[in-house]
């Protein structure tokens, strides 16, 4: 009452009371904001640090071996005398294994995604999707022994004359390894297509198959392609399976019955050896690593381009 009287009697020119004035500074909020920013920055800085280390050694490597010899040479035996630093056999080994992996993984992955999203009942989906994703959690070394001890003998049993270590069984198993990545991302993309589009298609007398292939898959294509490219990235970067099953012979061939060495397998096999730091052998690891980095980087750029180019937006 007293206040009211005061307010009423106050001169009209006085500033209005600041009812929305901040009560006290919010330190906790500032702290949270700062730590979140720090977390983000740390990730970026770590990545930059890795890239720096990678390219520093690579540049030093290229001081001793000309870039054209490295990129276009067809012989790779850096530890022999005289050494040869042509990376092409490793690149073809990597590409061939990735190619075989994708031939396995794209139909299986996209097919199971379409089944789960469009055909499976809710209960089936709830059972199968976690099982599929568990496949992604199996340690890759297990897949490697699976390739070596089961897939290779099986290939021989069905009459494919493969060596003990060969690119084919490695590629096939890398493909199985990549299926969950592609299936999971593609399924998310398919499920995200608005149900209105399904209804529209069914309402026009389309069958389930027509609806899936002519409406839902095109609408989700960008997500499916993103999944495939991510799967390809995984296949390119996959190490244990090829290290164990594909052999370690740098081999400029696309005959996958023979042993091949991939870039990752070379890095792993050489890196675990007793190579003196700073030697040319040491630097080859970084050079191959940098090339691998560039390849996956280009792959990701390509996926962004495809996604942007072929997107069928539905909102």
């Amino acid at each position, binding site marked *: 009452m007293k206040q009211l009287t005061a307010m009423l009697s106050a001169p009209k020119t006085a500033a209005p009371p600041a009812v929305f004035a901040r009560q006290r500074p919010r330190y906790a909020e500032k702290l949270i904001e700062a730590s979140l920013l720090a977390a983000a920055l740390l990730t970026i800085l770590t990545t930059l640090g890795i890239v720096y280390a990678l390219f520093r050694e690579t540049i030093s490597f290229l001081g001793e071996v000309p870039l054209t010899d490295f990129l276009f040479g067809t012989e790779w035996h850096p530890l022999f005398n005289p050494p040869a630093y042509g990376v092409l056999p490793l690149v073809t080994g990597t590409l061939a294994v990735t190619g075989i992996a994708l031939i396995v993984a794209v139909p299986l992955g996209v097919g199971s995604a379409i089944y789960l999203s469009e055909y499976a009942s809710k209960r089936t989906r709830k059972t199968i999707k976690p099982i599929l994703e568990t496949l992604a959690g199996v340690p890759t070394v297990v897949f490697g022994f699976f390739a070596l001890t089961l897939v290779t003998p099986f290939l021989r049993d069905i009459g494919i004359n493969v060596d003990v270590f060969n690119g084919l069984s490695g590629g096939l198993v890398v493909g199985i390894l990549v299926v969950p990545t592609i299936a999971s991302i593609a399924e998310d993309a398919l499920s995200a297509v608005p149900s209105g589009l399904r209804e529209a298609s069914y309402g026009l*007398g389309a069958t389930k198959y027509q609806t899936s292939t002519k409406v839902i898959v*095109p609408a989700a294509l960008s997500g499916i392609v993103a999944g495939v490219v991510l799967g390809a990235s995984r296949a390119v970067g996959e190490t244990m399976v090829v290290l164990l099953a594909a052999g370690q012979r740098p081999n400029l061939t696309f005959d996958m019955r023979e042993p091949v060495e991939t870039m990752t397998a070379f890095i792993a096999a050489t890196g675990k050896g007793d190579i003196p730091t700073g030697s040319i052998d040491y630097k080859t690891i970084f050079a191959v690593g940098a090339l691998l980095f560039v390849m996956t980087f280009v792959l990701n750029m390509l996926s962004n381009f495809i996604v942007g180019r072929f997107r069928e937006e*539905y909102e």
Partner: protein
Amino acid sequence: MAWKVKEEPAPGGAAPDVTPQGEHAPTGAQNIFELQAVSVRYSGNLAVKEVGFGVPTNRITALIGASGCGKSTLLRCLNRMNDLIPGARVEGTITYKGQDLYSPRVDPVQVRKRIGMVFQKPNPFPKSIFDNVAFGPRVLGMKEDINLLVENALRRASLWDEVKDRLKDSALGMSGGQQQRLCIARAIATEPDVILMDEPCSALDPISTARIEDLMNELKDRYTIVIVTHNMQQAARVSDKTAYFSVEVGDNDRRYGRLIEYDDTERIFTNPSDQRTEDYVTGKVG
């Protein structure tokens, strides 16, 4: 484009099919749909209880009532769209030209070829305008010239003049009202007998709404239209017959819809025989 159950004799002698395939019945001569004691349940929960009425050929029939009265559910029974919802069950009989729509011999895909649908929210495919309209004819493998089919459908949906120069553009670049007329064009491109419309104007402004209503009046010469609408003025303006549904509260506070009154639209809005209908159409409730 075979109507699979064509040869099946009319069950119970209800509304025998005297119409040759591909032609429409004489105006007002008979009912294209007959519903008898139709109930719909979702996972056992009653949504619509024991509805019966007939939908006349080449007329516009409006289903009105408050939210939750089951009018959309009932509409979706007419082209078996409810089949797509797990746990949905339809009881009673619905006949289309005398044939039981829910006979085990009926293929729902064949049903939807003859009974098209337009939805509440415009849902064009993320494709070009042309491909949207061409989708149905292509899927059904229609043999006629596709360009001609698309042009005719767009003309009948009075959209042709607006889009003829940009048929290759994405349908998603159109306005909401244009998109809905595109969806109508898409539905009529397959030359169905019936078009079901589920609140087709609820997402549109009044001018677009007026255009769609004009369109419905032009279309009813060739098609039977059943429309669900929240807008009573719309029902009064466009429809010939009106069915009023109300929401009933059953056991456990579960809500379901019931048909209260079905009659000529003029009578429903000027001289309804049920007090509840009068209260609804005069705006006393709802």
